[in-house]
């Protein structure tokens, strides 16, 4: 296990290096922040050049990349060009909001998906199974920007139950978490249903029935644990994706997460801030993946590393 973990950590470091190269390269293609900052102001070429020098943007790209890597090793990703604050600090400041909405959305998704998935596997022709299928289709087919705006119209403007946007109280969390959680809920409930159906037809489950166990014991103790493996994978993937990519939901609900910050940084060509955000999200993603792999071994003792 220890050797496996070490090897995985080595791989992760390599992935991170590749990620930084990709981000850095893309930012070079995206262009020069100084031009955007001074567009329309009548600035002269000398003024552009002096601002570039001030910001350390006048060195050739490979030199700047090496400087960036050196900073990364010391944990210093430079200052945001626009906020004039430590770039990593700005991203870390948003992390609680991002984690909060990610965990809330996944919590909501699991709270719905696990019972619906189990019940529709146990009673494949029951009412819940059909209702679950309809919900899953809707949940997976509805784009979140539309759903979010509709939820705001209904629950904020018409019913006045929740605020339309913002951050800070539990009431602010409800609409974005539900909007964001609906898609993983639909996906996980379908996946759990099919995976549980498959397990329920296995020999050892029949043995459990034959022992005279209750339905509860058979399904929850024996079948669910084995059916959970693919579900854990999907949860891990969704978690990673939500950490970096809840941009649309964050935009609609004015939620101050990492996604919204990164998009604004991209529009502003705030290179240091974009790099800090991407590095952080990549690290988070890597950790989540590692945790999922460790969780496999815990769920299924046959899996050895």
């Amino acid at each position, binding site marked *: 296990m220890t050797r496996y973990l070490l090897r995985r950590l080595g791989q992760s470091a390599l992935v991170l290096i590749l990620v930084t190269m990709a981000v850095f390269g893309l930012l070079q293609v*995206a*262009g*020069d922040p100084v*031009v*955007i*900052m*001074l*567009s*329309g*102001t*009548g*600035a*002269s*070429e000398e*003024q*552009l050049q002096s*601002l570039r020098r*001030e910001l350390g943007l006048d060195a050739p790209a490979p030199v700047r990349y090496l400087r960036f890597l050196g900073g990364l090793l010391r944990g210093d990703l430079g*200052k945001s060009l*626009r*906020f*004039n*604050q430590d770039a990593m600090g700005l991203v870390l*400041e*948003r992390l*609680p*909001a991002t*984690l*909060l909405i990610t*965990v*809330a959305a996944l*919590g909501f998704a*699991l709270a719905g998906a696990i019972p619906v998935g189990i019940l529709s596997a146990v009673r494949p022709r029951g009412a819940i199974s059909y209702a679950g299928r309809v919900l899953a289709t809707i949940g997976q087919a509805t784009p979140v920007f539309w759903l979010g*705006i509709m939820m*705001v*119209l209904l629950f*904020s*403007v018409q019913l006045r139950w929740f*605020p*339309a*946007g*913002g*951050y*800070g*109280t*539990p009431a602010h969390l409800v609409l974005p978490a539900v909007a964001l959680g609906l898609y993983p809920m639909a996906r996980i409930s379908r996946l759990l249903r099919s995976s549980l159906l498959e397990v329920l037809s296995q020999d050892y489950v029949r043995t459990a029935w034959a022992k005279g166990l209750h339905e509860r014991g058979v399904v*929850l103790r024996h079948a*669910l*644990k084995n059916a959970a493996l693919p579900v854990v994978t999907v949860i891990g993937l969704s978690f990673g994706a939500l950490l970096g990519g809840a941009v649309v939901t964050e*935009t609609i*609900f*004015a939620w*101050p997460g990492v996604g*919204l*910050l990164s998009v*604004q940084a*991209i*529009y*502003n*060509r705030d290179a240091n801030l974009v790099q800090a955000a991407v590095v952080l999200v990549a690290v988070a993603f890597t950790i989540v993946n590692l945790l999922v792999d460790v969780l496999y071994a815990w769920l299924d003792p046959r899996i050895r590393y």
Partner: protein
Amino acid sequence: MSRRWVVLALLLLLGLSGTGAPQTLPAASAGAAAGKLTIVQGPEPLSMDPTMDINKTSYNIQLGLYDPLIFATPDGRLRPWIATSWTNVNPTTWRIKIRKGVTFHNGEPLNAESVAFSIEQYNRSRGEGNKYFQFIKGTKAVDAETLEITTDGPIPATPTMLGFLFVLPKNYYTQVGPERFGVEPVGSGPVKMQGWQRGVRLVVVRNEKYWRGVLPIEEITYRPAPEASTRVAMLLTGEADIIANIPPEQIPRIEAGRMRVIRQPSLRKLFVEFNMKQRPLDDVRVRRALNHAIDKEELINLVLGGNAIREIGPVPDGWLGANPKNQLTAYDYNPARARQLLAEAGVGGGFQMDLWHSIGRYLKDKEIAEAIAAQLGNVGVRVNLQGMDIGSLVQRIHTQNLSGAHLFSWAPLIFDTDNLWRAHFYSKGLNQYAVSAKTDELLLAGAAALDRRERQRIYSELERHVVNDMVPWIFLYRQSLIYGVSNKVGWLPRADEVINVRNLIVK
């Protein structure tokens, strides 16, 4: 096993809601109490240090925190403010009298030395404010109430430029440094900083000792909401009292919710800029033809729902250099004339042209580009639309020699015509599409003409040259600003997108 899951999930949720709670501010109770207002703009402010960040979102807040040296309004007028008077001692020296008895929020006195420091700090800045006062070569506080500045050559626009200078507290700024100043600013303005949870809200409270009298509003909260329909929802639910930057299609929702819509013609002009170095656009007849081919009224009425004002020349009304309308060629919609001009230029059979445009930056920019493409199609010009985000477009416009034409825009920060000329018509500026020896010569002559009438003469000649002879643009319109306002707010917006807290009233 299932119990273990539940416990794990609960623990995570608890831990996170702990860290996720606001640390510096109480929960939002926007717009509830009298005397409190919430203003919702699109993007979030980046820095409260005006030498770093001059985006409108931030500038609107800064204008409340600080006082400008001179108060400049978008119609080009100047009012004594922190400076009570300014005179040209000689062509390159200005003597400025500073108001007595003004103090910053922390009690630091505001004097000539504060102003001198502010100019130097702008010029030292690593941010967007760096560019504006480089023309000032020396500052000298003669005594506490007198400042002398020397400029790089005679610059008649100096007082107007100084309308853009916020006066900063020298001691406090030097003590905390730019990074902390950007988050914990101190100014002399009518409001002072209360707290800022970045990305969530920024709260200011009124300065009870403001030298011009105390504001009628106790507290203002600024919140970001990038999505326009969310801003409208926040107005309708009472979470917001003023919402900025509303697209025309959202207007009926606001009116149906019994809130007020305020439309204000802005100084933001839109135009199509040609690449005059390429065939066939190097022929002025072709550029005139394309001007005649565009039905500007249709663009304004059909695409923008009337939320724009047609413009025939680049200089805003009332500004130095603006010509009487009968001095400028208006290029009215006349497709027959357009076809005739194209035929005279030898491209009667039409031609292909790229039209580069932004998506989602200006009012209906993509739809306007499509309408222009259709109208040009009617006279035989086959337009290839090239749409992209504004950052990429600005990059390409300034760093590549973009083919064909681009739908572009300009809005002034400083209300002197010199800025307009340098932004577009100066061969040493960023924009290289509409420059010539003649525009250079006239704009430099105007920039140095200390006599106001002489300056007016030169600039109006330059405007006539640009519109009547050079034709580097299709002159389109100035778009309107659209705000939604709750019934308890009294306010008149400004043409430059500024929300000045000094003009707000709560009913």
